């Protein structure tokens, strides 16, 4: 306790130097926290889930993926051949299957105004909350799914959509509006863009990766595509299954791939990992060059500040030795000053970054809100303390070796 009080007193003595060192650590830990957040986010995306494992079914070779909807019907609907095969897999549930068809729509007939574009996912409405990564619990009572199927204003079955609030604002529409949108991604047999009538029946959660996206009913999309004889009629882009565990995901994937050679079925983490592939080298540089370099810079800054302190306090250290302080106590004092300052500045920095970023709510397309995790508070503390420890080590060792005779002979 006495040592701790002495540490606090010493740090308070030269407030300017203490503040400058703390500010340097603060700014570097801030950047480290942001980088560590990105790395941890990407790692989390590529890490296999242990339960409620979401697997992605996509065309085996083609990008963007596109395959026959009949496979998904066969997987999900009781009585289908694949469905009966999958029943033997422990952890597969036929009600936890889903399909997606992507549609890019615009309200601008000239198709030029980017603000009038929106990206829609045609799916089974009751699966939006159940089977969409990041939307768990949404529309738990199924009210919105029912509104999508039976929109109240237009009365036209299946034309309802739910949309992210941010995109709705850009489109200049509100819940209850009924309007026509042109699908720039879909053409009819006559070569003309397909037109959809749409009624907005609800909003997706704000501050979510889906804040720019809309969900619509696949039944309606199929109806329209069939009417115009579009080549996307009867096609889907992606299919989904959710299984209890990694083992059941692997087993279900094996069954699907063995009977349907056109598709591949893999855990979502594996699919994301493949798309992130080209960035792996960049991530390597960030992890093994940028982050260590930030740590070295912090260490150097602390080493410099503590070295200056030790040089200025040689007399004081000599007096402490005369008063009975052992060399290890002197070392502990100097190390303690550095570590306390580093840990405090690091923790404060992480706290500020965590508070600021999670309140500003920066959105990243597809990945959603850039959220600094709670663990970052620990990272900041650890980063500050560890670098300060290494930075203070040499000056502390120098302080330990200060010879009383040398100091006082110079004074004399």
């Amino acid at each position, binding site marked *: 306790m006495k040592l701790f009080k002495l540490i606090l007193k010493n740090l308070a003595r030269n407030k*300017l*130097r203490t503040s*400058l*060192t703390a*500010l*340097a*650590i603060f*700014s*570097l830990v*801030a*950047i480290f926290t942001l*980088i560590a957040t990105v790395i941890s986010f990407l790692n989390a995306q590529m890490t296999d889930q242990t339960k409620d494992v979401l697997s992605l079914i996509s*065309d*085996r*070779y*083609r*990008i*963007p993926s*596109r395959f026959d909807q009949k496979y998904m019907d066969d997987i999900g609907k009781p009585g289908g051949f694949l469905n009966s095969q999958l029943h033997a897999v422990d952890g597969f549930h036929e009600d936890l299957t889903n399909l997606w068809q992507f549609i890019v729509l615009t309200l601008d007939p000239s*198709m030029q105004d980017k603000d009038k574009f929106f990206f829609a996912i045609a799916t089974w409405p009751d699966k939006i909350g159940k089977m969409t990564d990041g939307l768990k619990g949404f529309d738990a009572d199924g009210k919105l799914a029912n509104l999508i199927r039976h929109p109240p204003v237009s009365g036209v079955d299946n034309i309802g959509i739910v949309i992210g609030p941010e995109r709705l604002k850009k489109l200049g529409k509100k819940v209850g509006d009924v309007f026509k949108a042109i699908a*720039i991604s879909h053409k009819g047999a006559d*070569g003309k863009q397909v037109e959809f009538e749409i009624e907005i029946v609800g909003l997706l959660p704000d501050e979510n990766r889906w804040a720019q996206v809309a969900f619509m009913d696949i039944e309606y999309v199929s109806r329209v595509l069939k009417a115009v004889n579009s*080549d996307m009629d009867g096609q889907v882009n992606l299919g989904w299954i959710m299984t209890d565990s990694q083992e059941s995901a*692997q087993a279900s*994937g*094996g069954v699907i*791939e063995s009977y349907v*050679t056109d598709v*591949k079925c*893999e855990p979502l983490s*594996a699919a994301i990992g*493949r*798309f992130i*592939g*080209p*960035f792996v*080298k*960049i991530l390597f*540089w960030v992890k093994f*060059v*940028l982050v260590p*370099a*930030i740590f*070295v*810079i*912090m260490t*150097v*800054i602390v*080493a*410099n*500040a503590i*070295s*200056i302190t030790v040089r*200025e306090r040689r007399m004081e250290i000599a007096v402490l030795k005369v008063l009975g302080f052992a060399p290890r106590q002197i070392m502990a004092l100097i190390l303690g000053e550095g570590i306390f300052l580093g840990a405090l500045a690091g923790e404060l920095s992480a706290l500020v970054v965590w508070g600021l970023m999670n309140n500003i709510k920066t959105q990243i397309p597809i990945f959603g809100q850039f959220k600094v995790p709670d663990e970052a508070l620990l990272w900041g503390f650890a980063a500050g303390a560890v670098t300060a420890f290494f930075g203070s080590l040499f000056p502390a060792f120098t302080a330990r070796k200060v010879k009383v005779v040398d100091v006082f002979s110079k004074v004399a």
Partner: protein
Amino acid sequence: MIPLRYNYRNLLVRWRTTLLTAVGFLLVIGLLVIMLAFVRGLSTLAENAGHPGNVIILKDGANDEMFSDINIDDVHRTLFSLWSTDDLVQHDEDGSKWVSFEVYGNVTQELQEHGPDGRASYRIVQVRGIEEPAMAGKVHGLNILPGGRWFSRSGIECVMGKSLAHELNLQVGDTFQPRTGLPPVWQLVGILDSVGSPFDREIWAKREDIGKYFGKDNEEKKQSFYTTIVLRLPDYETASLACKHYRDLPDIKVNAMPEKDYYIKLTENLKTFQGSAIFIAMIMAVGGCFGLMNTMFAAVSQRIKDIGVLRIIGYSKLQILLSFLLESLLIAVLGGALGILAGMSFNGIEQQGQLSAGQGGPGKTVVFKMVVDSQVIRTAFVFTFAMGLLGGVVPALTAMRLKPLDAVR
């Protein structure tokens, strides 16, 4: 006159502090140079890609060939006359026009090494279906490396970029089967001399193979598509004018742009990357500035008496200010210059990156070399000076404000 020798000697006397502060600068500026070299390398590749006279024609609304499809029937019905009758389109002595019809896509390749569960794993490969390989090579300015040849229209053959062939460990004569147990089984007959071009990680094969086996054709409706048509005009100005004409065609809507502009558009995603690099460097620079301030404040407090003496013997306040500022700048320049030198050692290192027009999808994977050019060095020096000035100005002001008599007491 500023007491320069005095400053210089002080830096030498306090060599440990000078060195530690300079090391901090070295690391900050070194990292900045590396990050900028990465961005510069990728943008240099995009800037140098494409021939100034080339026009690229895509589907209306598509800025990336990944999202383009133009029905071949439409091309023959409507577009073909555009270049067949246009004398400005470059042509060979036999009259064949320099036009390349292509279908480009990303496909997943099934890997031979299966995972622990025995199921297949995949990787993304870029493929380009070509009608006339030799003509495509001319239009894109690419040749086949010695020992190889362009694929023939009759065989099941392909050529591929040098970087991809190296990664897949393939040589001319080897076979390559992207879909296990399924056609095509391509024979590699040539390797593109593609280093530094955006085609270095592509497989080129017959248009029909790509259309048929990788879902670019609609077999049910017997429709085939091109994603891209590239034609050669004399220069950029002619290409720009032709693009306007193509975009305004009454019978078919297409997006046409000079190939140079197309690749510049593909650098959209780099802006975010560049912004992030500058942001990281700025925050690190702030940390470096505080480190320098520490050093300079310590220098001022250790030399209060010196400053008093200097003032008494006639040095003005401004000279004291400049003296300390110069000292901090000297440390900054020493560390910064070493950082630039360290960063320069990364010049030419091969990296992989992605070009994307921001329309989604996996983007175009390219191999490029990191570039430390005068622009990167200039930016690094501006950072160095700014850090040196910001870190030194407050301590220098403190030194300037000292009263001579108080200082020598």
